[in-house]
């Protein structure tokens, strides 16, 4: 029957360990277990996986080509949409790259707002991960609880930027707009309530014997393997490697926050789960500090070549009007050169490699997608496990296919 549902099974003719033949099973690309539109070609020996070959590209959107067709400031809306679970972090990588090329520094208030948005995004990304992974392993209430808190975060996104998911909040030169008092109040309440919610998730999963037996020892990735395979983010930290770009190569003032890098020596799905739980707690901690230290001041660089003038100047100054027109018709141009900036997203190293040829459009923008690299480790992790474990393994790898395929 259906190719899509599933699944075509062919016999390879080779003998398996259980006396039967190896079967090549094709999961996806539209299959509930694959966390998006991922297709997997799996060689099975009985129920054991002998080889996994991910086939990607079913969500290839041409994002990098689209960036070349758009002007520098227009590109922000496209960066939102590749790793669609963490738009502000994508914005941040792009904004930092453009700012490095332009040689500008954003004001302190903008930096703190950027950190706040990054951490909120990390929380919402982990919440989506936990909800969907929980659902995939059958814990359906987790989805509801996690998305409930995610909705709160999205409400805050809407409050500060006007849109729920694709905020385009962090832009080269600063942020879209200052935080409203209501946003700060919502954030305050959120920081107060979130640890209790995390406790609730832990009540449901952390010590649950079913959850533990489905994740402990599953999808093991030794520290060496993780490093060799280029894994980053919770995949790497779940293997016990203490590596976090926020600590290693601090950006946006992360060096001034007091937080721990969550690692786990379990090296398996459970370890990655623990890392994410810990990261959520740390994110709340960072949010608390950021909110306390939020300085006053402007939220954008004072550079009329890069950002439009304030609206009230338009009525008075002819120069401002000219800048305004120029910026919105042809945009600003960035000095020639190339730069790579990496930030830590919920999935790992989310990098942005920008090449400018001095015009008002980028020559090349390459997004270094954490999911793309992490997904390559799937083969290593899934080997010799059972088919049913593949769900847990893909789930905890947390590959966002939009990020993989771009």
């Amino acid at each position, binding site marked *: 029957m259906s190719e899509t*549902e599933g699944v075509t099974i062919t016999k390879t003719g080779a003998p398996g360990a259980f006396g039967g033949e190896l079967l090549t099973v094709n999961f996806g*690309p539209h299959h*509930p277990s694959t966390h*998006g539109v991922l297709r997997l070609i799996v060689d099975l020996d009985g129920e054991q996986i002998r080889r996994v070959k991910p086939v990607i590209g*079913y*969500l*290839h959107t041409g994002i990098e080509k689209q960036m070349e067709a758009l002007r520098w400031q227009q590109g922000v809306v496209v960066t939102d949409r590749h790793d669609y679970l963490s738009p502000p972090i994508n914005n941040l990588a792009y904004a930092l790259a453009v700012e490095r090329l332009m040689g500008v520094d954003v004001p302190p208030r903008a930096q703190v707002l950027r950190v706040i948005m990054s951490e909120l995004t990390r929380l919402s990304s982990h919440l989506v991960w936990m909800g969907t992974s929980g659902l995939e392993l059958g814990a359906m209430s987790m*989805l509801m609880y996690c998305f*409930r808190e995610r909705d709160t975060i999205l409400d805050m996104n809407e409050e500060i930027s006007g849109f729920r998911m694709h905020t385009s909040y962090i832009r080269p030169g600063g942020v879209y707009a200052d935080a409203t008092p209501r946003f700060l109040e919502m954030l305050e309440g959120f920081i107060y309530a979130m640890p209790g919610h995390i406790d609730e998730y832990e009540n449901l999963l952390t010590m649950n014997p079913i959850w533990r037996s489905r994740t402990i020892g599953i999808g093991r990735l030794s520290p060496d393997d993780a490093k060799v395979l280029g894994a980053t983010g919770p995949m790497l930290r779940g293997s016990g490697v203490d590596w976090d770009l926020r600590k290693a190569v601090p950006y946006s003032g992360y060096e001034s926050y007091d937080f721990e890098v969550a690692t786990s020596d379990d090296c398996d799905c459970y370890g990655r789960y623990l890392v994410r739980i810990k990261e959520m707690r740390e994110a709340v901690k960072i949010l608390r500090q950021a909110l306390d230290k939020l300085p006053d001041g402007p939220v954008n660089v004072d550079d009329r070549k890069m950002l439009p003038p304030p609206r009230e100047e338009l009525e008075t100054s002819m120069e401002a009007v000219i800048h305004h027109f120029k910026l919105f018709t042809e945009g600003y141009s960035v000095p020639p050169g190339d730069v790579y900036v990496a930030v830590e997203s919920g999935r790992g190293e989310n990098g942005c490699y920008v090449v400018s040829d001095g015009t008002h459009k980028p020559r090349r923008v390459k997004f270094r997608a954490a999911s793309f690299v992490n997904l390559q480790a799937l083969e290593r992790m899934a080997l010799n496990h059972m088919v049913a474990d593949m769900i847990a393994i893909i789930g905890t790898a947390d590959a966002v296919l939009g990020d993989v395929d771009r």
Partner: protein
Amino acid sequence: MGIEELVESIGSHVLTTTLGKVVGWGRGNSVWPAQFGLACCAIEMIATATAGVDIARFGSEAMRASPRQSDLMIVSGRVSQKMAPILRTVYDQMPEPKWVISMGACASTGGVFNNYALLQGVDKIVPVDVYIPGCPPRPEDLLNALMILQERIKAQGILPRQ
């Protein structure tokens, strides 16, 4: 008594009105979506099913994994050239009557990604009943579209779709 006689005796208007209303009511209030999440909108589609707005109130929480048991395909997200044939296959696998909601700018027109890789509008390969603009649309938007679709289904009754 054959079916023709039956229709004769109770009058064709009964079939098209009373029965039609009942069937339309049933179909309209029990729209089971197939999971066809593709990108950003898929996350908002999941959010629609969660406690925030709860699509279950409309009787549509049964997101069946198998297209055989679904009535509605919510194309949520960008449809790449590589995905398009698969989407069509899934659509073909759904039994009649079936409907399609094209959720979000990308599914409806390609949105910001006006380029080589994306299908510029899913209505090129499957007939779309309701379009939702937005990138991604709010969960309420999806419910609104579902309600528009429900009205359509109820009006359609037992008749085959046009």
